[in-house]
C-alpha cells in the first residue's frame, strides 16, 4: 500500500466512522443504549488513533522521509487495513438494525 492509497484509505475510514457515529446518535435503531455506547466507543477509539497517527506520520515523512517514518506508517497501515476489513461489515450490520416502518422501508436515508 503506497502513501496515497494509505491516506485515501484512512480518510475513507474516518468518514465512515463519522457516518456510523452520527447514525448511532440519531438514526432509529434497534440497538440498546449500551450497545450503541459500546459501538460508539470502539469507533471513537479507532478514529482517534487514525487521526493522530496520520498526522504524526505526515510530520515524520516531512522530516525524515518515508523510510524514517516507517515505524509510524506500519502502525497506521495496520489500523487502515483493519478498518478496510471490518468497517464495511459493521456498517452493513448497523444498517440491518435500522427500525423499519410500516412500508418496510428503513428510515436511514437522512443518515446515509
Amino acid at each position, binding site marked *: 500500500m503506497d502513501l496515497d492509497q494509505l491516506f485515501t484509505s484512512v480518510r475513507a475510514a474516518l468518514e465512515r466512522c463519522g457516518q456510523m457515529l452520527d447514525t448511532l446518535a440519531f438514526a432509529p435503531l434497534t440497538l440498546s443504549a449500551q450497545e450503541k455506547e459500546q459501538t460508539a466507543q470502539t469507533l471513537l477509539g479507532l478514529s482517534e488513533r487514525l487521526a493522530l497517527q496520520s498526522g504524526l506520520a505526515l510530520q515524520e515523512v516531512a522530516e525524515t522521509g518515508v523510510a524514517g517514518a516507517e*515505524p509510524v506508517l506500519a502502525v497506521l497501515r495496520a489500523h487502515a487495513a483493519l478498518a478496510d476489513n471490518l468497517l464495511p461489515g459493521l456498517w452493513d450490520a448497523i444498517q440491518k438494525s435500522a427500525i423499519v416502518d410500516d412500508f418496510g422501508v428503513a*428510515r436511514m436515508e437522512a443518515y446515509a
Partner: protein
Amino acid sequence: MTAAANDVMQKVAELNSGLKNIDATLGTVQHALSTMPPAPSAAPTLASLIAQSGSSSPDTPPKVAFPVNNINGGHFFNVWLSNAHSGWQWALNLPVLKQLSGALVSEKNRPGVDYAAIDMLNLPGLVAQAHQVKGAVTGMSVAGMFMKSDFAGGMVNIMSHVSGLDMGSAKTSVAAAVAITGLAIGDFIMVSGSQRVNGKHDAVVEKIEQWRSQAGTGWASTVKGWAAWGASKIYEPQAKLSPATQQEMDRYRQYGGDAPHIPEKDIPAVRAVADSLVSKFNVPYAKSFESAVKLLSLEERDPNRLLSFLSLRCLPSTWVQDYGLSNKTFVASDILKPKTGQGRFRNWGPDNDDLSALSLQANNALDFYRDHGGSQPTLPLQDQHIVREVGDMLHKAFGATDYQKIDLAIDLLTHEERSPSALIEKLRADGLPGQWRDKYGLDSAGVRLSSNGPA
C-alpha cells in the same frame, strides 16, 4: 438481543480484538514516537508531552496536553494543530456539522477550520446560555462520549485559547453546541422523516417556513434556524422550476407534442427526480429524464414535493404504466389522491382528511382479531395512514414510542372505539381513560404496552 444487534456487537468485538492485536504486535503510537528526533526548538517535544500525559493503556489513545505558553509556534504546536485540523475535518464531515458549517460560515471566513469553528459556534454569545442547558447535555451519552475524545478536547483547547474563555466554559460550549444542535436537527429530521412516510410533505415544509420566519438572536431561535436550514436541505433540496419551464410544461400538458425543453438552470431539479426514478423504481437511466419531465408536467409541478412522494414508494397504480416504474419496488396505494380544483396540474396529496371509518376489509380483520386473538392483523395500505394518525396522537400526547404507537392504535381501534375520528376526539378531549391504563399496561408518565396485550 436481536440478530442485527448481535451482528453489530460481533463486528465491534472483532474490531476491538484487531486493535488489541495491533497494539500487541506493533506497539502503540507512543512506542513508535520514541524514535522521533528531538525537536529543533526549546519547545517540549511531542514524545515528552505524551509521556507526561501518562497514558500507557493500549486501549486509551495518548492524551495530549496543550502547552499554554507556546501557542504561537514550535514543533509540537504544529503537529498538534495538524491533528486538530484532521479532527475538525472529520467532525465537519459529520452530516449535522457539515450542514451547520455550510450554513453559518462563509467561504471568505475559512482561512482555517479552527477559526471557522469558532465562527460556526458563535462562542461568546453561546456561553451564558450553554451553562443553563448543561444538565441536558450531560444526559446525552453519545455527546458525552464525543466530549471524551481527543479531538473534542482539541476543539475545547482551541476555543479556550483563541477566544480567551476559561476551559470549563469552552468545554460546556462545545458540548452544548454539539448536543443541542444535534438533538434539534436530529429530532426534527426523525419526526419529519416519519411525516414524509405519511406523505405530509406540505406539513413539513410549512413547519420549516414557520421556523425560518421566527427571526431572533436568542439561542432557541438560532437552533430553530439551524434545524430549519438542515431540514430544508432534505425537503427542499431543489429550486422551484423557472416560469419559462412551467409554461413549457403547461403547453405540453394541454396540447401534447414534443416534450418540454428544459433550460440548463432547471436541469438539476429534473435530474434529481430522474435519479430518484432510477434508484427507487428501476427506471432505465436513458429514459429516466423523459419520465421525470412527464411527471413534472402532468402530475406534480413542484420537484421537491414530487421527490417526497416518490420516497413513499406508494403511488397511484396508473403511474406504473404511464411513467415506466418497475412494479417490483412499487406499492399501488390510495394514500395519494389527486385533489381537484387546487391548481393547474393534478396536485397529488395524501388523503388524510377522511378519518371517519376504516375499510370493510380492515373492519373484518379487526373483528377476527377481537374475537379470536392471535397476532395483530396487517391492515390494508389504504387504512394504514389512518392507524398512523391515531398512533401519532398517542405518540405526541402520551409519549408512546415508535415501536408501541401502531400496536397500541390497533388495539384501541379493535377493542375500544372502531371509528378513528371518534377515537382521536376521545383521546383529545378526555385523555386516556383510567381503566385503559390498567387494561393496556399504560402509566401516566408515558405509555407502556403490556406484553400480554389487552385483557
